[in-house]
């Protein structure tokens, strides 16, 4: 089933066009990887999906992005509601400089998801469990989140993102600041999370894309060169550029 449907998306930074005519369908409960060389626009596209580009004054997004058949670029779309449904994990772990508990409970608090302390405790616990962090931190929930290791911080950020039960999780190079062991943990986690969430992950590592994703989109110079099932893209791409990038001839 198709969860997100992007139609002719153009993005401009001031006068410079960063994305050209992107049309891409994203399947529900699957992992879609966006790959491509640096500066190709894959992160920009990802940030279109929860309208994080709004924060940048000079950024201008055109085209339609339908999530559950609702155009999020429409004026009637409320970004707060949208971002409640579409969580995001960033390149660098960015926990709030607060306690672990406060980090995870922040989303449910502002969206009024828990009626009692008990309910909140439950949300925090399940979120941390889903993020495979519970066992490591259950005794120090009230210590600052910034005191964790990099990999733990990133999993904390994932726990924070899933605490509001988003339908979609956007991940912007979530492992680029992590060591191989932490990376493996996160990848395992992504595999687990796709049962309940639709995941879109931007990555520099083709190996990672091959490992975690079912679908892959290849971006180059602001254009979506090719997209399809990961198997096909990696084994038998249609486009010469994709072939060159996959085999490491450029990028």
């Amino acid at each position, binding site marked *: 089933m198709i969860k997100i449907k992007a139609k002719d998306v153009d993005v401009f930074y001031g006068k410079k066009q960063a994305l050209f005519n992107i049309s891409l369908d994203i399947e529900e409960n699957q992992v879609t990887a966006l790959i491509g060389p640096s500066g190709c626009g894959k992160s920009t596209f990802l940030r279109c999906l*929860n309208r*994080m580009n709004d*924060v940048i*004054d000079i950024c201008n997004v055109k085209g339609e992005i339908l999530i559950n058949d609702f155009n999020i670029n429409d004026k009637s779309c409320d970004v*707060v*509601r*949208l*971002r*409640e449904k579409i*969580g*995001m994990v*960033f390149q*660098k*772990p*960015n*926990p*709030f*400089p607060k306690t672990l508990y406060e980090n995870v409970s*922040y*989303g449910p608090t*502002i*969206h009024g998801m828990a009626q009692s302390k008990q309910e909140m405790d439950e949300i925090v616990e399940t979120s941390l469990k889903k993020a495979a962090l519970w066992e490591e931190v259950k005794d120090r929930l009230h210590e600052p989140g*910034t005191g964790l290791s*990099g990999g733990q*911080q990133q999993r904390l*950020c994932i726990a*924070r*993102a899933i605490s*509001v039960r988003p339908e979609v999780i956007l991940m912007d190079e979530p492992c680029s600041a992590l060591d191989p062991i932490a990376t493996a943990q996160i990848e395992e986690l992504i595999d687990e999370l796709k049962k309940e969430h639709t995941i879109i992950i931007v990555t520099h590592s083709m190996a990672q894309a091959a490992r975690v994703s079912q679908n892959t989109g290849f971006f180059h110079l602001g254009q979506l060169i090719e997209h399809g099932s990961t198997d096909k893209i990696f084994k038998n791409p249609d486009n010469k550029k994709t072939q060159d990038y996959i085999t490491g001839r450029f990028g």
Partner: protein
Amino acid sequence: MNKNKEQLLNKRYKAEQRFRLYGLSAIFMALLFLTIFIFKIFSTGYSAFQKTWLIVPVTFDAELMMLDQNPSKEDLQDADYYDIALKSMADLDPNANEDQENELKRMVSYFFEKEIKNELLNDPNLIGKTKEVYLTASDDLDQVFKGNYPRDLPEDQRRVSDYQLKIFDQLVANGKVESKFNISFFTNADSREAELAGIASSFMGSIFSILVCLMIAFPVAVLAAIYLEEFAPKNRFTDFIEVNINNLAAVPSIVFGLLGLGVLLAIFQLPRSTPLVGGITLSLMTLPTIIIAARASLKAVPPSIREAALAMGASRMQTTMHHTVPLSMPGTLSGTIIGLAQALGETAPLILIGMVAFVNTIPGSPMDPAASLPVQIYIWAESAERGFVEKVSACIMVLLGFLIMMNLFAQIIRHKFEKKWS
């Protein structure tokens, strides 16, 4: 080739050594000036914390005080103390003629009558008895006792006569002169008499001014900073505002004084010489300082924190209030305290709005006339009497102590509450 390289290396080492030497001598110079400055102030000022008292036997003669038998409290309040006060001073020298009696009277402060009255009010049983009472010595004798008075000047160039010195020396020899900690320096308001002048009025005036300044400048500045940093679009207009705020911080303080005079006093008819007007004027001065500090510390909050909150579905307002502002508070607060410390030391604008007036009452609210510490320094430094010289230094010491405490507090806030982000 090799030799050349060695030369270059030597040169580099020498340059570094020279540079270190320059740095050290600069620090040494700065410390030297500071030491001289502080030494000068302390050596002149420390004696102001001591006060000289004459111990004079006073006979509480009911007849001279015009008191009946068994006087009530009110009677004691209304009694006439001038005569027994005069008499007890005159009795210091039984052979004194009328002129000399006058000189004897001037050996103590004009407050002596009240000091005697208080003694009796504390203990009504003294009526008819004689008791040795502590009387504040005149400022000149105070200086004589402290050794600051040029006794060897010819008599006609001194304010203390030979006769007064003779009696005073007798009292000293008899142990009837005592030096005690000068409480009245902290509890009295200003006075024309150096021996009675204190900093209570100006101290309270400074406190009230700073409070008014804080209450106006802090919320306005913080709101302005938050709006400019987090909400305002970046365009020519906001650039223009930013440039002007920076300019405002560089405007000489006396200009703000003129503004206070022209607008607050002339147009709004606020009461002259009050900490209210002083505080408002100072807040205009402090405003840009706090705005700049608050913006800097808002800028220092990493954008990743804002993105994290926004991506969680927090509104812009929630992001700002839940994350950015609390994280920027330590920087904002220490900037505020430093701005207030500047305002505390400000003199020129306060002189213009009339806080330089002679105020001999202690203000109970920001609406009462008052001086402020730096203005008090200015007023005393202008006075001719020798007794005020040490008061100026003492007042500077109090002001400096105040400022050091505020800056220390700012440092503590900065270090203690600064968040470390990964």
